[in-house]
């Protein structure tokens, strides 16, 4: 079948099962938009800035487990998109991004809106393609989707020169993708799994350390089975929140820089640490030579290069988390037949963790006059009973949301973990809402972070995406302020955002509903009103600007160097000492 290239692109998307594209048109991709005019079965959501198209595709992908798709033009559109690509790269999110390119005969001529798109996105993607011949469109798009969603998922970029989109070519659609150079390993090594099972059953102080890999491989049920079978406590990374219910008796919640005291203590004192789909990020480990110093480390990951990258691993298992966990459950059952279930021996460990939980729970000081940000998150958690889709920006609000929201389900938490992209919240929430029109999608954002993509309120209004945004408004870049307060001796610099803009007025200008609260007593009624409004809402919550995120491990410090209370001179001195040049 001979079709114009643009039409081939759309046909291929349809065959890949794509139903929504997030995009923004421009010169080089006009042929695709022309083909879209009367093409059935694809919803196009027009964003207001290209990075938002990428983030929305990420939100869609994370919410559904399918590949998210975005489409933007050449040059500046592609460079705007790079942030979203790198974000998806760091967090292993499967998206396919299409960009326009100047016609092939002009490539390299410094043409209008030309950039070396594939050169620029090379290190920000899992793989990228420049299509040079119309007949390659089908096979390349097929490979792009295959690469994005198999192995360790990630972003794939396809660059489409305008003449390729215009010229007719044969639509070639391979039944199956076979690549001699790319064959991810899914099954874990049986001997290593057995070794892991042996260690787990015999461990006295084991901890399961769970990351986003469990969510992307849909392994939450297997994880829960393994945890309950062995009664091993579970801590999750920021990306792993939702992989294991926060309120499960075995949950010790998040670990790392702003993790709970008990999670960090448990990991530090563990004798066997089972890392599942996590990558020993520096925000998790703190100082690496002091991370889990007594533990035998078992690491399950789909990506061989994650293993022994930051931390030396004793039992590496390369494979898909779900399949490996399933095999591990079997191996543990087998092992228990001869070695016993080992639960009795772990009683003191559970008692110790319970003691840590009791002495150092997550806490903040209540104030009758000023709203505490943690309280807002708690009330959101209560009112939605942990059932909402929670999206965040990056900063203090993100950490409070991670700490105080009680997660029940996987694929209900969307945050920029690896790259820490401020402005991630609203566009990602749009993608989640587009994927799940009937779910409550709440974007918990900061006033600094929200500003970076606030233009997307327009998209929410026009495309009828009733995203609810709660701005934890502390009139400044709170996380930077916290670091300057604790580590830089209160020399505050370039952090004030003094109440500009007026979020309520801005929301209204974009056709959204704007609300504001300034007193603790108003929080619940306002949240209820927000949740019952069938339109996009911006709820501006003016909170205590001095509140800090605790616990906090200063960058470069060991996880046991947690700061638990607001800074005193003594705490500040300690923070300074463990500061090693970040």
């Amino acid at each position: 079948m001979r079709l114009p290239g643009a039409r081939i692109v759309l046909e291929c998307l349809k065959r890949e099962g794509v139903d929504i594209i997030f995009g923004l048109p421009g010169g080089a991709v006009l042929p695709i938009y022309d083909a879209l005019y009367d093409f059935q079965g694809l919803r196009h959501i027009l964003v207001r800035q290209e990075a938002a198209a990428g983030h929305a595709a990420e939100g869609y992908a994370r919410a559904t487990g399918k590949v998210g798709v975005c489409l933007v033009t050449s040059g500046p559109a592609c460079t705007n998109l790079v942030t979203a690509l790198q974000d998806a790269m760091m967090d292993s999110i499967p998206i396919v991004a299409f960009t326009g390119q100047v016609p092939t005969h002009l490539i390299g001529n410094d043409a209008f809106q030309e950039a070396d798109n594939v050169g620029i996105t090379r290190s920000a993607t899992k793989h990228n393609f420049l299509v040079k011949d119309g007949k390659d469109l089908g096979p390349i798009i097929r490979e792009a989707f295959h690469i994005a969603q198999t192995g360790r998922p990630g972003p794939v970029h396809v660059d489409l020169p305008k003449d390729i989109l215009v010229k007719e070519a044969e639509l070639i659609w391979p039944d199956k993708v076979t690549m001699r150079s790319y064959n991810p390993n899914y099954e874990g090594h049986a001997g290593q799994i057995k070794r892991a099972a042996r260690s787990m059953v015999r461990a006295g102080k084991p901890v399961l350390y769970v990351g986003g890999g469990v969510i992307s491989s849909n392994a939450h049920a297997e994880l829960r089975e393994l945890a309950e079978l062995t009664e091993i406590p579970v801590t999750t990374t920021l990306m792993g929140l939702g992989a294991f219910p926060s309120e499960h008796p075995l949950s010790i919640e998040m670990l790392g820089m702003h993790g709970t005291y008990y999670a960090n203590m448990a990991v530090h004192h563990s004798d066997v640490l089972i890392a599942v789909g996590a990558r020993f990020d520096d925000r998790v480990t703190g100082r690496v030579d002091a991370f889990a110093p007594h533990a035998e480390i078992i690491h399950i990951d789909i990506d061989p290069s994650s293993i022994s990258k930051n931390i030396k691993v004793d039992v590496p298992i390369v494979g898909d988390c779900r399949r490996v966990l399933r095999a591990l459950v079997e191996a543990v059952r087998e092992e228990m037949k001869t070695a016993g279930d080992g639960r009795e021996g772990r009683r003191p460990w559970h008692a110790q963790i319970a003691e840590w939980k009791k002495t150092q729970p997550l806490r903040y000081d209540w104030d009758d006059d000023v709203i505490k940000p943690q309280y807002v998150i708690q009330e959101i958690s209560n009112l939605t009973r942990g059932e909402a889709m929670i999206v965040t920006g990056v900063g203090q609000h993100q950490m409070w949301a991670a700490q105080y929201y009680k997660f029940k389900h996987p694929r209900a938490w969307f945050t920029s973990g690896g790259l820490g992209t401020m402005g991630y919240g609203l566009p990602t929430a749009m993608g989640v809402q587009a994927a799940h029109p009937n779910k409550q999608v709440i974007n918990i954002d900061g006033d600094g972070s929200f500003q970076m993509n606030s233009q997307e309120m327009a998209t929410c209004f026009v495309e009828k995406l009733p995203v609810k945004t709660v701005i934890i408004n502390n009139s400044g870049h709170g996380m930077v302020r916290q670091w300057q307060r604790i580590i830089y001796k209160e020399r505050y610099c370039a952090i004030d955002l003094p109440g500009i803009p007026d979020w309520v007025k801005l929301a209204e200008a974009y056709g959204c509903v704007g609300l504001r609260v300034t007193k603790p007593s108003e929080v619940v009624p306002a949240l209820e009103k927000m949740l019952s409004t069938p339109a996009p809402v911006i709820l501006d919550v003016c909170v205590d600007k001095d509140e800090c995120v605790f616990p906090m491990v200063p960058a470069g410090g060991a996880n046991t160097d947690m700061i638990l209370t607001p800074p005193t001179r003594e705490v500040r001195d300690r923070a300074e000492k463990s500061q090693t040049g970040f």
Partner: protein
Amino acid sequence: MSGPPARTMTANGSEPRKHTISVLVENKFGVLSRVAGLFSARGYNIESLSVGETLDPTVSRMTLVVSGDEFVIEQVTKQLHKLIDVIKVNDLTDESHVERELMLIRVNAEPQHREEILRTADIFRAKVVDVTQVSFVLEATGDEGKLEALIELLRPMGIQEIVRTGKVAIARGPKTRPRKAEPAKRPRVSEDPRVVGFAD
């Protein structure tokens, strides 16, 4: 006071040394920049790189010389393999292999030195490929040690220019002939616990 056992990758003892890594890649445009980009993005040092087609024209062979300790090299090979266009990565350093490099060297050839240069070239089995009144161009192949030695011997005459190809390497053949009846059986890499995830 003895601290906890070191978990950091570099503190773990092994000395940095040169590794020769042979990489089979798809013969497509952009592959070289993917490989080169990987090295610059991750801060690895690349000492030499040579690329050429193989028996199969759709496949190219890259020979890389990289220096680093055992953990750096492990990451290098894993990261190389993570590139979609990379088919196979093989660290030849500790395997029996042959390494060669080709060098063209233009050296001053004053009358009083001409004899000696030719003698030296002869000893090193280098060919004279260009002669003028005042200079010779020699072509020499060999491993790094041999070429360095040749350079040192010619240095007193005055070397004008050196062009080197970078190293290429090939594994030596098996010592015994494989029995005919047995098809060459490659163990699935995924079954080998020492190897983590090479596509087979």
